[in-house]
């Protein structure tokens, strides 16, 4: 094990896979010599040159469409969006072309594209640099949606994305980029659709997404002293979504809360609640509860920004209420 930041762990995966597979190339604004706005490609230009580290004009739809054509003809584009908010200009290319191409060609074409970039609220980034879009992408057949929380998961899941044949949204919460954690020395590719049990417990199951996993873990330590034993589950990928692990935990606890910074309506929590009711209704001792970020665009000023995100206090209250229910 070594200690790496989240970004360094993901970069290590990219560096190793680019060495292994000459068809991988990266596109994005400032990802060449500059090394990426978030250092996602620092040092790679010197290793692999300007064709494989392709700086782009500000033409999101253009290079997403380009990536589709490139993937159809045998190469593996990785698009680094810096902020995933910028992806929205190319949604038609993603939803109508990229996501449907394998299906429409009956599997004769593959679509190994990785679309990466940071998501999430924080740092007074305001509304065009703060979106969480994973629920929207999880609603599209043909796409894989990955939301790693730890450096080890960032590396292992990025490797799986770079070795697969499906289009993958690889979404990195900006508050996680500089967090550190142990990363295995070995070459580990973590499969999609397998949740991680971040903490074992028996009183209540809390499913948390991306940065909320870390918040819930902090809260769980406090609640342990009150005699509430919290099991924390990090799905790691939301498409596919591992509800088996969630339901197995509920079988033990009888109660579940989903904590998600993203919006509640039609969100991942709604999907989890529905699937739990379909497969584990008889295990529920209380309704599945959700705690989400507010259903608003993201405001700028720190006191406005912080109020729309689930706080540690709000998480603790939600868990206590659910356990008492």
């Amino acid at each position, binding site marked *: 094990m070594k200690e790496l930041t989240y970004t360094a762990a993901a970069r290590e995966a990219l560096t190793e896979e680019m060495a292994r597979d*000459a*068809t991988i*190339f990266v596109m994005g604004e400032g990802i060449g010599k500059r090394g990426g706005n978030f250092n996602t490609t620092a040092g790679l230009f010197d290793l692999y040159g300007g*064709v*494989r580290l*392709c700086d*782009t*004009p500000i*033409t999101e*739809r*253009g*290079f*997403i*469409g*380009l*990536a*589709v*054509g*490139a*993937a*159809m*003809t*045998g*190469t593996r*584009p990785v698009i680094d969006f810096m902020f995933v908010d910028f992806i929205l200009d190319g949604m*038609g*290319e993603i939803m*109508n*072309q990229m996501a449907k*191409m*394998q*299906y*429409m*060609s*009956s*599997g*004769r*074409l*593959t*679509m190994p594209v990785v679309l990466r970039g940071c998501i999430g609220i924080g740092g007074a980034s305001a509304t065009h640099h703060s979106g969480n879009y994973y629920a929207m992408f999880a609603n599209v*057949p*043909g796409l*894989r949606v990955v939301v790693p929380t730890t450096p080890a998961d960032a590396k292992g899941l990025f490797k799986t994305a770079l070795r*697969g*044949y*499906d289009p993958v949204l690889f979404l990195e919460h900006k508050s996680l980029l500089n967090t550190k954690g142990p990363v295995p020395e070995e070459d580990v590719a973590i499969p999609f659709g397998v949740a991680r049990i971040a903490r074992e417990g028996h009183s209540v199951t809390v499913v948390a997404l991306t940065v909320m996993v870390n918040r819930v873990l902090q809260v769980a330590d406090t609640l342990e002293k009150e005699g509430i034993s919290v099991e924390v589950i990090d799905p790691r990928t939301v498409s596919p979504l591992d509800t088996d692990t969630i339901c197995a935990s509920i079988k033990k606890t009888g109660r579940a809360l989903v904590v998600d910074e993203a919006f509640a309506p039609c969100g991942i929590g709604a999907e989890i609640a529905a699937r739990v009711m379909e497969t584990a209704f008889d295990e529920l001792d209380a309704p599945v509860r959700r705690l989400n970020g507010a259903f608003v665009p993201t405001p700028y000023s720190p006191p406005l920004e912080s109020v729309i995100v689930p706080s540690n206090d709000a998480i603790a209250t939600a868990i206590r209420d659910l356990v008492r229910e």
Partner: protein
Amino acid sequence: MEAELDLVLRLYRTMAAIRLTEERLAQSHQAGLVHGACHTYVGEEAVATGVCAHLTMRDSVFSTHRGHGHALAKGVPMAEVMAELYGRELGCSQGRGGSMHLFKPEVGLMGTSGIVGPCILQATGAGYSSKLMKTGAVGVAFFGDGASNNGAFHEGLNLAAIYKLPVLFVCENNMYATEVPMSYAAGNTDVYMRAAGYNIPGIKVDGNNVLAVYEAAGTAIKRARAGEGPTLLECKTYRTRVHAEGMKESGYRPMEEIAAWKARDPLKLLREQAMRDEICGDPEFDEVHSSVAGQVAAAHKQAVESPYPEGRDALSHVYYEVQA
């Protein structure tokens, strides 16, 4: 170099294949064999034929909603095109696509599309693959005058230009986007002039003259393979049938205009030129024509006899599946 007679008859054969297949499909549409839309390419055959005559199976073609001609010119068997519109298992997309989603990557037909514009970007991506992997393959986008007013046109041409990608952008300017005249929709109806904005060559050609298209495309593709970058080729042409089968001429274009373009039928023009240049005459063309007619009839029969796909086939290939 191919003998002139062989080239003329080869181009004629492809155009006749497109024409007779399209006429068969129009008839099948009236008979209820086509379940959805059917956009024919009648009148524009010279463009796909003249361009694709230069391509190998490793070159890739990205096409439009009016893509039957591109598919046939790129080498998709007639029976597979017809069967696709009939919704059958034999169809080149196994019944998943219909008229607007023809796929045959095995021959480099990377898809026709129901959305106007993306083909321009995808051909650019094929150019990028070629550059990265140094394959020498060329990406070709066919699109109409309508797409030239879409952002994808600008973004794709600019990206291909700055990376010097081996791409050929073929604008089939048939003067109407569905029923909206180009003279209404564009500040400048000469699409080829926009190439200057990207510092790439822009060529205008008579899209009903297959030999002219063949020559212009040849130059552009040679340039692409030599690593000198993309070309915009504007082919002025006209679709002589309605936008989609089942629609009516609603008066958006003058009947005289239709008649004038029908008189410039690309098959007829090729015959006339060959006779003028004393390469060959009607007997040779007629022989090709009737041989193609026989193939079309046989392909139609094969397509109609193909079974419908099983309902369960609708659920596979959403994601990559390990091939058995």
